[in-house]
């Protein structure tokens, strides 16, 4: 067992937001998904106040040991999530963490109000990778914006707030420190690295959304460096992710200072990767302590 923000988890391996749709997976795999659920907590895809269709295709490009995606946060919006998705996600055998994203304090407040009050929800993750419409600054790239957002919404809920940090800045530490000082209960990192793919035939950008985010083993060393730097600077627990593929990768994230490890792209290659990595991690940790 591992403790995270006063939530007891069976093991330290969860999923990264937007990398596993438990509702769609249940259509593909049936109730075996519930019996063999690979994560010790489930993080939802990011919810926005209003529905979003997502970016035009193509949305994917494979790179050496990685994947660029430009999905664009398709979701049913807050009301659609509460009505259609939350009842199904509450049937999962693990605690539920809901990821939310707004473009202003007011939007974040509405989301935190709407989701944070539900008993089915154990914690919230704040996706801060979009601009504040008032300042034009991306919240996750600005210590002041991050601090002020946390101060505004922390009083609205008793649920733990996790801030998802972006790697697309020179140094993630000041934002992590500012978020923790503003009341964040935990931080998670890294989000995807900004990336572009070129169409080999047209000689122009490939993805429908123009730019995308890189994930997979290609980013793991960058993630490990950022997790280590943030862990040196903050005392709140850290959820580490970025190219974790094996138990050894997960163990390195824990040694770098993380409390939990999230698996993302590897689940695309093996839907049950979370279970395998958790089992391998158990072996890695006992080998060290033994």
């Amino acid at each position, binding site marked *: 067992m591992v403790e995270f923000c006063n939530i007891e988890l069976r093991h330290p391996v969860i999923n990264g937001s937007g990398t596993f749709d438990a509702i769609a997976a249940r259509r593909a795999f049936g109730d075996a998904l519930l019996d063999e659920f690979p994560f010790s907590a489930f993080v939802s895809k990011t919810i926005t106040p209003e529905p979003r269709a997502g970016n035009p295709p193509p949305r994917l490009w494979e790179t050496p040991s990685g994947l660029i995606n430009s999905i664009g946060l398709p979701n049913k919006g807050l009301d659609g999530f509460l009505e259609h998705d939350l009842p199904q996600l509450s049937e999962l055998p693990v605690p539920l963490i809901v990821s939310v994203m707004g473009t202003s304090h007011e939007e974040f407040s509405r989301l935190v109000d709407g989701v944070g009050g539900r008993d089915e929800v154990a914690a919230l993750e704040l996706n801060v990778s979009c601009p504040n419409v008032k300042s034009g600054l991306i919240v996750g790239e600005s210590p002041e914006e991050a601090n002020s957002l946390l101060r505004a919404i922390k009083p609205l809920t008793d649920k733990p707030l996790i801030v998802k940090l972006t790697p697309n800045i020179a140094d993630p530490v000041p934002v992590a420190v500012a978020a923790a000082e503003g009341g964040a209960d935990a931080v998670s990192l890294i989000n995807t690295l900004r990336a572009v793919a070129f169409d080999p035939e047209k000689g122009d950008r490939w993805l429908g959304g123009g730019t995308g985010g890189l994930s997979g083993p290609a980013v793991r060393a960058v993630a490990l460096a950022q997790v280590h730097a943030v862990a040196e600077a903050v005392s709140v627990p850290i959820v580490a992710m970025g190219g974790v593929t094996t138990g050894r990768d997960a163990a390195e994230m824990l040694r770098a200072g993380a409390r939990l490890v999230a698996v993302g792209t590897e689940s695309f290659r093996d*839907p049950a990767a979370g279970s395998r990595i958790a089992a391998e991690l158990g072996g890695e940790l006992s080998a060290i302590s033994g």
Partner: protein
Amino acid sequence: MKTGAASGLGERVVAPFGRRLCEVTRNVPSGGYRIFSALDPAGPEPSAGQFYMLAADSGWGGDQGRPYLARAFSVADAEPESGGVRLDFLVQAVGPGTSRLAALEPGEGLWIHGPLGRPFAAPGEVADGAAGAILVGGGIGVAPLALWRRRLQRAGIPARVLLGFRDQANSGGLDLFDCSEIRLASEDGHTGHRGYVTDLLGVLMEGDDAGSGAVYACGPPAMLEAVRVMCADRGVACELALEAPMACGFGACFGCAIPIAGGDGYMRLCVDGPVVRGDEIETALVPGSGH
């Protein structure tokens, strides 16, 4: 939910959770393509039109770090054998993933998850009163139609098969069909009608009984779009097996989105397809397919 028995016609078969290692049992040339087989020890019999995510156990990663992700393949045939279900796949080496799969040797390991996605539906479910099927395949896209034809035959439903290819090098998979029943087209005229397979479909549709059948098609996007428009113009119901860049196959990555009819957002081909009715989509010209 069935996990071992043969499925009903057009039933969406649910996959075991997680990926599993299968043994490659055969890899033979078939025209310009190859057919490779794997013995799935733990999976159910798939329905026609469903697909699997495939990755070689060794050499997946290659010199350039690719292939990295598994590759989606429609199943071309599936038969229970001692020790599991034999799965046949049709492949043409065009990129790092297909090249590695085309080079699989008997005895090698193949990681699979599946069967996944929405299969072809019986003609009577696609169109009221449809008693027969017209199967239209192009290029490597003939694969799912081979299994569909066998399943229709098993159910006693008549099917006419029209297959088209670009040229000799870009043709194959005929071993998966009973050749006597097929009408062929080729763009270079090396076999059958010189021209497109949709020419054959046009002739067939001018016959007086075309309205009593449902059309099923799989092939390159331009062919599928032509079939979709021809069927829409003539009021004939059709199902199309599409492809799009796909990382996971089970709805996790949201990568395989295609626009739904009416301009109201997207569907995910892996869970809402890969088989869709012609009237469910805006166009069959899916951006990014073939990569």
